[in-house]
């Protein structure tokens, strides 16, 4: 596992090496350089740590999405699922806090994880047993999760109990040896994910199902099980992200996680994972998430472009990334 961490962009999993693989990392390097030229503050340890910490949230969810997408699926519900999980978690913690005190936090985390896995299982079974296109199935659950969080908050907000706020704070704002905890968590998630995707039977099956469902079926692979599992992994990742970010969010609202699914898909695709399935790039996804956050940060630090145009620039980036992939294939 050590070598996975040491040389993420290298194709030691035996995948072909090409622009599609190195692209996101080169783009990231270029972005860092441009950022430094525009504003030397950009490279300050503080700013970098800040940006990467913020990107960890989309990053963790996008790592899960890498499984779903490389298995040939798509999950549009991640944003509202994150809001829903956050809501459930805060409600559970607030309910338990008076009786058990800060022990409510691990309880909340466990509930969040179970909720995430259950949500993923729901998505997965609708897609596989219900045989409904992932796009449509998760469009449906996206609406359901969003409505549930709105109902739970009564259209307003559910804030985390005051007594828990300070105890929970370090999960997002704390650090180990100067490295913010969200960065450590997303690194750990990426390491595990890379191992699962590249070095386990499940990873092989996941990519095979995405590459050609028929070949997988004729090779004796249970396509439904593999697909469902990918959605479950996605759900777990959303839950982990939500757990990390509760201190920053502070509350669950009906607009929590709005449009995150688009950022997640963008991160996955600019990372080199094939949107039609059959190829997954965990470290590329991580780079993709960081790139997105860097761009937003750069636009805030510089005065050239209004920060209202962040989404537009991200849109341009995803199109450029796809064009590069297309051209490198020839």
């Amino acid at each position: 596992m050590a070598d996975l961490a040491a040389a993420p962009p290298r194709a030691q999993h035996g995948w072909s090496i090409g622009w599609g693989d190195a692209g996101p990392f080169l783009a990231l390097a270029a972005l860092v350089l441009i950022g430094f030229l525009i504003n030397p503050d950009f490279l300050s340890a503080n700013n970098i740590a800040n940006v990467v910490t913020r990107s960890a949230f989309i990053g963790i969810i996008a790592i899960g999405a890498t499984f779903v997408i490389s298995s040939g699926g798509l999950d549009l519900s991640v944003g509202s699922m994150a809001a829903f999980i956050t809501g459930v978690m805060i409600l559970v913690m607030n309910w338990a806090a008076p009786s058990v005190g800060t022990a409510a936090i691990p309880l909340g985390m466990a509930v969040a994880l179970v909720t995430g896995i259950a949500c993923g299982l729901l998505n997965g079974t609708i897609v596989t047993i219900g045989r409904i296109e992932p796009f449509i199935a998760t469009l449906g659950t996206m609406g359901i999760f969003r409505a549930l969080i709105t109902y739970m908050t009564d259209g307003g907000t559910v804030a985390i109990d005051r007594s828990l706020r300070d105890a929970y704070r370090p999960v997002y704002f704390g650090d180990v040896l100067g490295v913010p905890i969200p960065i450590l968590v997303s690194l750990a998630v990426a390491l595990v994910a890379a191992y699962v995707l590249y070095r386990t039977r499940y990873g092989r099956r996941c990519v095979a199902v995405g590459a050609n469902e028929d070949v997988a079926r004729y090779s004796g692979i249970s396509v439904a099980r593999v697909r469902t599992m990918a959605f479950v992994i996605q759900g777990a990742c959303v839950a982990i992200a939500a757990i990390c970010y509760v201190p920053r969010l502070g509350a669950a609202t009906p607009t929590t996680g709005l449009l995150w699914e688009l950022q997640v898909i963008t991160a996955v695709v600019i990372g080199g994972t094939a949107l039609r399935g059959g190829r997954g790039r965990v470290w590329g996804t991580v780079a993709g998430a960081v790139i997105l956050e860097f761009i937003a940060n750069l636009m805030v630090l510089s005065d050239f472009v209004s920060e209202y145009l962040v989404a537009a620039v991200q849109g341009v980036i995803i199109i450029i990334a796809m064009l590069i992939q297309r051209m490198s294939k020839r």
Partner: protein
Amino acid sequence: MSGASLALAPAGDTAEPVLRAEHLAKEFSGVRVLSDVSLDIRAGEIHAVIGENGAGKSTLMRLLSGYLKPSEGALFMDGAPVDFHAPADAQAAGIALVHQEILLADALTVTENIFIGREIARFGRLDERAMREAAAAQLAEIGCKVSPTALVRDISLANRQLVQIAKALLGTRRVVIFDEPTAVLTHDEVDPLLDIIVELKQRGVAILYISHRLDEVERLADRVTVLRDGRMVGTYDAQGLTPHRMASLMVGREFASLYPARQDPARLAGGDAAPALEIENAHVPGFVREVSLTLHKGEILGLAGMIGAGRTELFEGLLGLRPASFGAVRLHGELAAFRSPAHAAELGIGYLTEDRKGKGLLLEERLAPNLTLAALDRVHPAAGLDLAREAQLLDRAVASYDIRLRSREAKAGQLSGGNQQKLLLAKVMLNEPSVLIIDEPTRGIDIANKSQIYAFIHALVREGRSCIVISSEMQELIGLCDRILVMRAGRINGELAGEAMTESNVALCATSSATNENISGRTSDG
């Protein structure tokens, strides 16, 4: 010999050939795949191009039809040099290419497919009627009876091939290049197609015919050009060129026989051997009715029949790939029911799909993951992948199945058809099946690979395995099998063994409602 044959060729020597290629060569990033090929096609002749896979046939064909530009050499039409930048240029000059694969849009009608990209419009509005009438006329001309308004997904494979020909002929009728047009057709569908090609020739069309099936070449061709390893062996007058001689020219050595000798006469006795697989009263809704069969240990049992006779569906049903019911299934005498391909593999049944590109291999994936995909639990017992073991298994497969590759890191899609088939065989054999079901073992692969695959099948059977071979090539079944069952319309319509295994008997069983008894009656009459 080639020089003389050129001079003797039937079409008048004075007439300028319609299409002439001189010293064509093609390089891809420094690798020469074709060098110094010169040939010409005359009006009213069928010029066949034969060669093994990788001999350069498809490169040549693409050069002639504008899909590729030659690195060296030149093309002439009616004696004037031409330069094609795109397939459309060649089309405009009157050269049509009929692809080997069916490239039609399933969800569109026959007419829409024929006119795709060159629709007739009046003032910007599609003139459906004009197109329908033109399509109908074109279809009628080649004797195709499908309705121009039928959806392509609703018509048979043979008719799709005809629609594709109609599409190619529309407007471009000076030179028609056929790239293995019969590869996807069954025996009965081939004849009408060959008749159409002969008719085109008689109307003065210049035809270039590329095929693996040497008997067809013998039947059709006026001249034959042989390619080997990207070079021209020569152009020969088809008169007196036997399939055997063609095969020798293609491979560059003499061929004894395509099929291995049956070394074990005891195996032929069949009847005494224990049953390996017994299927009783199989039903696959929509495909198979009341089929029972027994495969004996050490036997190669052939399954003949036309496409749609239910052969593939029977075994897909058996493996749990599609809904089916069985009176009883016994594997080595014990009752068995296979829930899924994985379960069947566990119990010792291996199935090689007929569709190696669509269902057999991940073309974009490297060889090792392809090899082990059906046996992941067996190859990698621990949670993590044992990549060293996998590499070892690939080495072994490459050696024992003679898979030719440029690099271990190549993708499956980069292998030739024959090597893909060998990889697929190696993949299925990783599960050590005792009963092997091979669907179309040699579809679209060249002679040398074919004969190797036949040898592998014999070797596997000698090891004590039993094998069912489904094939649309009757010669293959007759040469390879101990016994042949012929399916027709979802039922078994006859069983042939020994001397009774002839092409005419197989064809009779496959097409008529005749039963076994009156077939043997007929053969004794004749």
